[in-house]
């Protein structure tokens, strides 16, 4: 038989041990990226002088260059610039890279969602004397979040898969573990198939949550 199913089955528990690391990196990156993205989007929407230009360049850079290149810049390049970054480990570099990269994408989708909110919502808030930030935080962002939620969850799914790139920074996550196992057994197909199946299962589970969430989010607005 070409594919050794028994070997594959024996690998599953080995690889599964690295799921917490993968999800940990993804969740931490997502949490920070969300806050950062909201702040970036607000700066752009309110056209905050100077900051608006800086944020535009930031978003352009992180969307315009490959994630892998960004990770290498943080892991291998940063220590050259900042001696303090010399002790940076692969996981930290990966989390920083993933956070900055995805915050740029998510900022754009949050900005789009904010701009899609009806003008009457801004006028109503202004008419009762709310400041722009109060209006943003209490009226606009909650409505924009509902619009942006499906897209943001898609980015989260993308982010989870992108943690596999931490392998290139020497991090032993699912991909790294599979590589090590395969190096001993020369069964590369089985090892990487197991990794693929585990990623697939995680993403499918999330897609299920995503569908449930969309129904819930819509509930407040229906009769």
């Amino acid at each position, binding site marked *: 038989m070409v594919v050794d199913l028994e070997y594959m089955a024996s690998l599953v528990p080995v690889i599964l041990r690295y799921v917490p690391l993968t999800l940990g990196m993804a969740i931490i990156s997502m949490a920070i990226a969300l806050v950062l993205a909201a702040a970036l989007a607000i700066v752009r929407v309110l056209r905050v002088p100077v900051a608006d230009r800086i944020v535009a360049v930031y978003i352009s850079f992180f969307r315009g260059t490959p994630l892998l290149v960004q990770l290498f810049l943080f892991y291998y390049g940063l220590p050259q610039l900042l001696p303090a970054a010399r002790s940076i480990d692969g996981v930290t570099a990966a989390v920083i890279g993933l956070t900055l990269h995805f915050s740029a994408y998510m900022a754009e989708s949050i900005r789009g969602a904010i701009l899609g909110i009806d003008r009457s919502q801004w*006028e109503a808030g202004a*008419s*009762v004397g709310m400041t722009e930030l109060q209006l943003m935080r209490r009226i606009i962002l909650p409505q924009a979040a509902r619009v942006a939620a499906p897209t943001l969850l898609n980015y989260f799914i993308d982010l989870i898969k992108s943690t596999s790139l931490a392998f290139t920074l020497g991090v032993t996550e699912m991909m790294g573990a599979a590589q090590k196992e395969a190096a001993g057994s020369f069964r590369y197909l089985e090892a990487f198939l197991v990794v693929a199946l585990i990623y697939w299962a995680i993403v499918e589970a999330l897609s299920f949550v995503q569908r449930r969430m969309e129904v819930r989010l819509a509930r*407040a607005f229906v009769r």
Partner: protein
Amino acid sequence: MSCDTGIRIEGLLKRFGERTILDRINLDIAPGERIVIIGPSGTGKSTLLRCLAFLDRPDAGLIGVGDLEVEASKASRREILALRRRTAFVFQNYALFANKTARQNITEALTVVKRMSQADADARADAILAEIGLADRGDAYPAALSGGQQQRVGIGRAMALEAELMLVDEPTSALDPEWVGEVLDLLRRVAAHQTMLIVTHEMQFAREIADRILFMDGGRIVEEGPPAAIFERPQDARLQTFLRRVG
């Protein structure tokens, strides 16, 4: 002028590109006065209201509410905010906060802007919900309310602010005919103790509620006076034509 009650508007000017929408409007409003603005569409009635709350930014002129005076051409963020906190606005399209319940629409500005405690704001909201006939709908989101109910919440939200001037912009224009009556009834009750500037096409309502009627055409106040004078002895030819058309 240095009187510090009432509302003073001097030389209010608004242009959209080449077009002059408000052509140096002058208007004094006494405390408690109810003024209704009538006139053909596109003559600047709504723009006048929107400029007074800086929803549209006037190009020049002076707006005074109580002891606050704002020079439109150089109004700062802080001045604009101060002005908005002395006025309340009722929108043609209701403009309720879509992510807030009816009660929250009323409490939102009380807690966030006026720094009232949640308990005090809720108590006030419940009193207002009762007054606008929606005591049992406080937890409903705007999408679950009829047009008439939404506009009553919009009026309730404005009432809660206890503003020195309530600006009411065509409150029934977006409503199905069946809801017009209840909204006008509520406005009549509110008008008993509220300084108001109302734009409406409901002539009967205007006649009942107004202390003074302004007829606007081409960005100017062409004629003004008590309802009896305006409706029974219109002087300006444009007003006569307008009244014949809506009559």
